[in-house]
């Protein structure tokens, strides 16, 4: 059973169709990179996986559980799916430690001590242990994004979704975030990553999904995608993004 299975997902904003029959899957331990021009529906697609965006047709199964089924307990499902956002979205009024422990306590029912210990361990892992008592506004963008990754990991997720995790970062901070993600990938975490970082895709992705105008145009093994993309649109996209 795939970790994430997407079957003919379509979505409309009123009359406007943003996703058209998107079908793909992510196996356990697999890393897939979703790329494509802006406005192609990548972010919308990844937000459908944990039900942050609703879709009108098709279905998505996460670890066998249907996201589209109205009877599904979405908070319970989301608690096991880690998500990292473009703009970090740490909770600004909480310290870093509180950011890392609040959901463990309120959602998973862990004790405060247990949650704090687990949070600090993950914070150390992303190299920010000394920032534990600070607030998000006191950290750089790259540091905030690493905390956001640690926060998602604190819930012991079965898979991780990344929605353009480096797009809002200064160039010199991109690598510190990518390094953490590469490490995660190498440890066997199941990951679905929307990104334009083709270096990251080269290094750790198993498959690349290319989207254009709400459709999955290409869904191929990494080497096949970079070697000889079949669609003209993907060829254009790659030549622009790789040779700038």
């Amino acid at each position, binding site marked *: 059973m795939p970790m994430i299975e997407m079957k003919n997902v379509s979505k409309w904003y009123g009359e406007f169709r943003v996703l058209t029959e998107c079908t793909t899957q992510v196996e356990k331990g697999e890393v897939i990179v979703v790329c494509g021009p802006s406005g192609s529906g990548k972010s919308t697609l990844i*937000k459908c996986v*944990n039900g*942050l965006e609703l879709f009108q047709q098709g279905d998505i199964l996460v670890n066998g559980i249907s996201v589209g089924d109205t009877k599904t307990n*979405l*908070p*319970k499902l*989301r*608690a*096991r*799916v880690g*998500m990292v*956002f473009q*703009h970090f*979205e*740490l*909770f*600004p*009024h909480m310290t870093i430690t509180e950011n890392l422990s*609040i*959901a463990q306590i*309120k*959602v*998973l029912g862990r004790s405060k001590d247990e949650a704090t210990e687990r949070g600090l361990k993950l914070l150390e892992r992303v190299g920010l242990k000394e920032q534990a008592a*600070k*607030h*998000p*506004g*006191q*950290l750089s963008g790259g540091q905030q994004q690493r905390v956001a990754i640690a*926060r998602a990991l604190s*819930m012991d997720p079965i898979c991780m979704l990344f929605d353009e995790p480096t797009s809002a970062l200064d160039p010199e901070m991109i690598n510190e975030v990518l390094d953490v993600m590469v490490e995660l990938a190498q440890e066997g975490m199941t990951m679905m990553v929307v990104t334009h970082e083709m270096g990251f895709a080269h290094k750790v992705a198993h498959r690349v999904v290319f989207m254009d105008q709400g459709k999955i145009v290409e869904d191929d093994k990494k080497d096949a995608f970079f070697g000889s993309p079949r669609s003209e649109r993907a060829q254009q996209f790659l030549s622009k993004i790789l040779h700038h």
Partner: protein
Amino acid sequence: MATWDWQVFCKDTIDGKIVPGCFGGSGDTTYLDWLLSAWGWTLSVSLLALLVALALGALMGILRTTPHRGLVLLGNAWTELFRNIPLLVQIFLWYHVVPALIPPLRGVPSFILVVLGLGLFTSARISEQVRAGIQSLAGGQRMAGLAMGFTLPQTYRYVLLPMAFRIIIPPLTSESMNIIKNSSVAFAVSISELTLFALQAQEETSRGIEVYLAVTGLYFISAFAINRAMLFVENRMRVPGMIGGGT
């Protein structure tokens, strides 16, 4: 300039004689006693109405930002109802019309009706501020909360409201000060608060200047005290690393 006579406050309200020490003893009431009691009524009406306004305003403001269309409609209707009718008219409606339409309210003291009238009027304004505060956080924080596995109520409780309320402390301060000033409409339904005191005391004593200056001073002090209290709260709640938050 006419000579001022501050002794007026030491006069007994019945026989007009100056009472030594200015405070009437057993059974006697000086204008100073009356002034202070009126101040007490003003503060009571204001603070109780503020509680009503904060509770209902926050609730309605929250409802208007939920994904449920029915709740949004309820919050919107509430807000529009109470902010599109003049405050004085609302007070009269509570006093004259509502008890006539809803018989169980007939025995309710006018003090309670004024608290409800002023509280609901202000709740519409606070609802608007709470809605604006929540919406200023954009969609990202809501999604982040939900993505962590929080339910919608938990997302409001732990993620959205703590920031939204911090953001709207300045307009809430104005609103809290307004409620002190707006409580003066209570005189219209014979609540013995500061404005009613001023009207009656200047009529009885003909010392309008002293009476109104004293009442003005007490209104100012009351509103200013709220202002300072809210500033204290604002400083205490400041988030390090945010605009104006220091380090």
